[in-house]
């Protein structure tokens, strides 16, 4: 029991640290692509501490206060339900508690809480961003869900542990090679999940300056940034488990999540932004069709 508690606590702290560090690295990488020096890699930690120590005197109702907690709760649930390192039972945390469908639901739960809180702030930019975000989410969730179903049906298991275990016979047994179309659909859905360009219509700095968190400040914003870092790492580990054979060691976990994290950063740096309808149309047709191809192949 104590070991479990320690493992859960270490997982959360470790994921938060890794998430913030990845965020700092991504800012540096983006700066280098722009030909700039960029901030230090620890900048996100500094920002977080500064925000945490600022005063907060903004109130927009109960849901406004609860939204960052929803976000963090959703992120922690996803994080704890995915096994981290194969073979090390202590890192499986609460992965016994549910399957991939529950995970997809919980991923939606955090974002929905955030949407309700941002909507409650009453700022027009936040409300526009929420409507855009929910529309886009319903688009990429479709292709992602179909891809996951195709993989689960193909491997005859809905448990993440089972999906990871089925990929342990070498690189060629990774789902990205066994289910190439579903993987392509899921990886395309990963871009809007990480709010990367060309799908960055939710934050859209030039249109709705910062979107949902417009009214959030100080400690609330620090919770939101922590939630985002945690959720980012949780999604990375989930994708590594679903498509890239999981992680057989800590080194493998860090390398795989780092490389996967760089994928939306690099794509994001060189693409302009879609309009909302373009983004939704693309997500409804291209990744969904790709995922469906593998689902039909598996069903036949």
């Amino acid at each position, binding site marked *: 029991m104590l070991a479990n508690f320690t493992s859960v606590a270490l997982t959360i702290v470790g994921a938060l640290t890794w998430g913030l560090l990845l965020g700092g690295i991504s800012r540096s990488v983006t*700066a280098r692509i722009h030909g700039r020096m*960029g901030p230090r890699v620890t900048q996100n930690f500094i920002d977080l501490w*500064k925000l945490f*120590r*600022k005063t907060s005197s903004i109130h927009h109702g109960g849901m406004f206060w609860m939204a960052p907690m929803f976000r963090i709760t959703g992120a922690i649930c996803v994080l704890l339900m995915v096994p981290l390192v194969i073979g090390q039972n202590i890192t499986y945390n609460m992965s016994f508690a549910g399957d991939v469908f529950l995970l997809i639901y919980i991923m939606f739960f955090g974002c929905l809480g955030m949407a309700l809180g941002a909507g409650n702030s009453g700022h027009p930019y936040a409300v526009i961003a929420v409507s855009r975000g929910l529309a886009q989410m319903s688009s990429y969730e479709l292709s992602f869900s179909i891809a996951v179903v195709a993989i689960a049906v193909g491997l005859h298991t809905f448990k993440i542990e089972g999906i990871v275990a089925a990929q342990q016979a070498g690189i060629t047994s990774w789902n990205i090679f066994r289910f190439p179309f579903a993987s392509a659909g899921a990886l395309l859905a990963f871009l809007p999940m990480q709010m990367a360009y060309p799908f960055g219509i939710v934050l859209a700095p030039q249109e709705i*300056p910062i979107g949902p968190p417009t009214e959030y400040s100080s400690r609330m914003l620090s919770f939101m940034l922590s939630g985002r870092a945690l959720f980012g790492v949780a999604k990375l580990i989930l994708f590594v488990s679903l498509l890239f054979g999981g992680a057989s060691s800590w080194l493998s976990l860090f390398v795989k999540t780092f490389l996967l994290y760089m994928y939306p950063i690099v794509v994001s740096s060189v693409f302009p932004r879609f309009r909302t309808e373009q983004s939704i149309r693309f997500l409804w047709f291209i990744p969904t069709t790709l995922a469906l191809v593998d689902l039909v192949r598996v069903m036949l």
Partner: protein
Amino acid sequence: MYCNQPPEKPGNKKELLEKITNMARANSLWVTAYGTGCGAIELRPLHTSRFDMERFGIAMRPTPRQADVLIISGYLATKTLKRVIRVYEQMQDPKYIVALGSCTINGGMYFDSYNTLNVLDKYLPVDVYVMGCMPRPEAIIDGFSLLMQKIKDGRAQGWKHYKENLDYYRENQKKIITDWDLPDYNW
């Protein structure tokens, strides 16, 4: 609603924590994107690869809720003052003001204009003035370095001064803003 209470001074036990926090504050300055005068044009190059203000941890925020620094970029017209006060009072403590250009110091080339404020310090607590007409990006970076040093040393206390001397500032502000309708709740 806290206008009448001066802010608490940190005790000895909190001093170390305050020092660490001041280091974080100095290295993470978020600036609200609000161009009040012609000096805003000199802020743009700071984003570019040539000057790259992000390397100092300085970033632009589109909302005063998240900002630490308000830049008064050049002359401040009497009509703009109300909006600037509104923006400043929506920012969360601690907050700082950087004033650019001669206009904010003594009116500059608009010293005898009917609609331009001459001495900004009478209306808002300025932490750092940057000279020039307009100051080049190098000068602005130098001003930011000064602000960062003041924050690290715990000397950037304009926001506390504003709270403690609110009556003085309000009196001066109301001399300029004749149609006063700003709310009293603010911070």
